[in-house]
């Protein structure tokens, strides 16, 4: 078996202990494994397309970038494993309780605060949700973007926090965030009780996955997948890693939860230039 090299994006300092821990876990089970960290998903997607890494821990947007590049090159991308917590997320669109906005239609000519421009949960999916309801961004309403760490695809929570603060200060009329962050902001006090209400919820969607492209040794990928799925929350050596990465169990990958994001990037043309650029590089 050749050494399996994984790519991951360094969106936080904790990424190093996480992948160091995984490295020890895999090596202790005779899987030759190493990892490379990237500062942004685009660099990681390109590296994977060019064969520099075998498997990538991808954001949902990076998954779609990879899948589309693969399609154009006549290759095949596969989402092999994801976290249990990557399934069935929702985003919510918040308004101030006293803001006088009763329906999505009331957002016309208003200001909607979102997260980073490449955040699926705080920008792309909720803006697509509004577009589905006949409100086109920057045409029917103003988008106020909180571009924290572009290239990290919204992995950093800071953009969503800033969007909520803008809403509370009255600098925006609505704010888009992930459901889990809504709960977190209420619990930590960023969102005072009764100050806001949820105007709308998006449909459920999926988040990150381990992506492989064809051409990687199937036995190695199968062993990697098998070892991931065997990680148990009951194992005291593994549990801290799972807690750091935010899951209770790994589950088989699925690609049925990316339809909303796919629709959003088609609508907004978010990744077209990037996908074409990488396609040219790889031809």
């Amino acid at each position, binding site marked *: 078996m050749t050494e399996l090299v994984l790519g991951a994006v360094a969106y936080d300092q904790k990424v190093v202990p996480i992948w160091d821990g995984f490295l020890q876990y895999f090596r202790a089970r005779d899987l030759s494994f190493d990892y490379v960290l990237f500062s942004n998903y685009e660099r990681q997607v390109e590296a994977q397309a060019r064969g520099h890494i075998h498997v990538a821990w991808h954001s949902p947007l990076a998954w779609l970038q990879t899948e589309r590049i693969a399609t154009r090159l006549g290759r095949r991308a596969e989402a092999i494993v994801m976290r*249990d*917590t990557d*399934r*069935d*997320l*929702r985003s*919510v669109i918040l308004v101030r309780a006293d803001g006088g906005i009763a329906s999505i239609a009331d957002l016309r000519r208003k200001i909607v605060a979102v997260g980073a421009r490449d955040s699926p949960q705080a920008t792309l999916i909720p803006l697509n949700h509004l577009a589905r309801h006949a409100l086109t961004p920057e045409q029917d309403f103003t988008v106020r973007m909180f571009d924290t760490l572009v290239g990290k695809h919204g992995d950093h929570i800071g953009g969503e926090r800033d969007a909520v603060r803008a809403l509370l200060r009255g600098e925006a009329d609505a704010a888009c965030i*992930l*459901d*889990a962050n*809504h*709960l977190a902001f*209420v*619990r930590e006090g960023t969102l005072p*009780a009764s100050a806001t*209400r*949820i105007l709308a*919820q998006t449909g459920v969607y999926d988040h990150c996955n381990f992506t492989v492209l064809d051409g990687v040794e199937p036995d190695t990928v199968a062993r990697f997948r098998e070892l991931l799925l065997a990680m*148990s*929350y*009951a194992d*005291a*050596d593994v*549990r*801290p890693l799972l807690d750091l990465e*935010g899951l*209770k*169990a790994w589950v088989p990958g699925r690609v049925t939860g990316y339809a909303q994001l796919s629709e959003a990037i088609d609508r907004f043309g978010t990744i077209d230039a990037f996908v074409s650029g990488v396609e040219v590089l790889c031809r």
Partner: protein
Amino acid sequence: MQVDLGSLGFAEGGYLLVKRAVRGLAPGDSIRVSGQAADLDVHLRAWCRAEGHRFDWQATPNAVRGQAVIHTGAAETERWAGARHVSGGDGEEDSVAEHPPRSWGLAARGSIIEAGTPEFDFTLTDKLDVWSDDAAHIYQQAVAAQWDPETAVPWHASFELSDDLEDAIVQVMTYLIENETAALIVPSRFIAQLHPHFREVMQVLAVQAADEARHIEVFTRRARLKRGTLGRSTIGGQASLKTLVDEPQFAVASFLLSVLGEGTFLSLLWFIERYAPDPVTATVARLAAQDEARHVAFGLAHLSQHLAREPEFRPRLAAAVHRRHDALRHTAGLNDEVFDALLLMAAGSWEHDALRLGSRRIMQLIHDMDEGRRKRLVRLGFAEHEAADLSALHTRNFM
């Protein structure tokens, strides 16, 4: 099972009710959660996802917003599957383990500890080396006997000493401060090395360090009461104390410091209290002596227990006395200034008869110190002649 949160928000405390209900269930079991609070569905879904529970939302057309069905996951059960009870394991919740694992870390005795906690670098992890059944009692006594330097000492009492006598007292205080500093540092160093599982021992050492802090304060205040400059510190005195500060083994350090050093100091402090020429000196000596008696008692208690279980440790304690004596063979021991100051204090004046009397008193002090050491050594199981030999080797610096 059904949990109705009514109008209570999930983040307002509703999650506690849900958690309580889920805790009683086996993985795979389900409960229904209903409520009228806005955002309940959003928060429940996000919470269930993070906790590893499966979640379904059933919207209802009536006034109740809807209800959730939660199918409990195994994460909570798995997290605590390998947990252990932090105790000696003889059926008693608070029993003390012989060799508490370093991974128990700071967990309180009697608690339940999750498997996989990080190991701490405690080096004193064997009950045999540190434990005394009397520790809890000694700690309680120590806490009850704490005194406030501000009010316990008659700082404003009126007295006037001759310059020479005042100088003598200042020199004695200078020497006491130096010694009490060693007595503060030694237990403090071991607190950081001690496994906190031995809670009562940790507490005794902590209050011992606090005692010494107060002693340093009152001796310093007495020294500065009428003088701006303190007395002299010598190579011999510091060299003697350095052997205590450098001793790496808890039991040996405890033996040298508490049993022999502070034991000897007890005689000295009562001597000062008795012959002090002023009420402030007498009081600070008495208060310190009362505390030192507890320090000696703890040293004797845990070493007695240690030696009862490991008699072969006794020769190692004796060897430590020899080693210290050899290390200090070429130093002067107690500095002349201290000895002379004690003699003048005991005499009370430069009169011939007074000096003769003071000298006899000092001889009596040396005799009392030796007798006290021998008694304590015999209590620790040394034969009379061994005790006499070892006592004779004790540092001339007293501590």
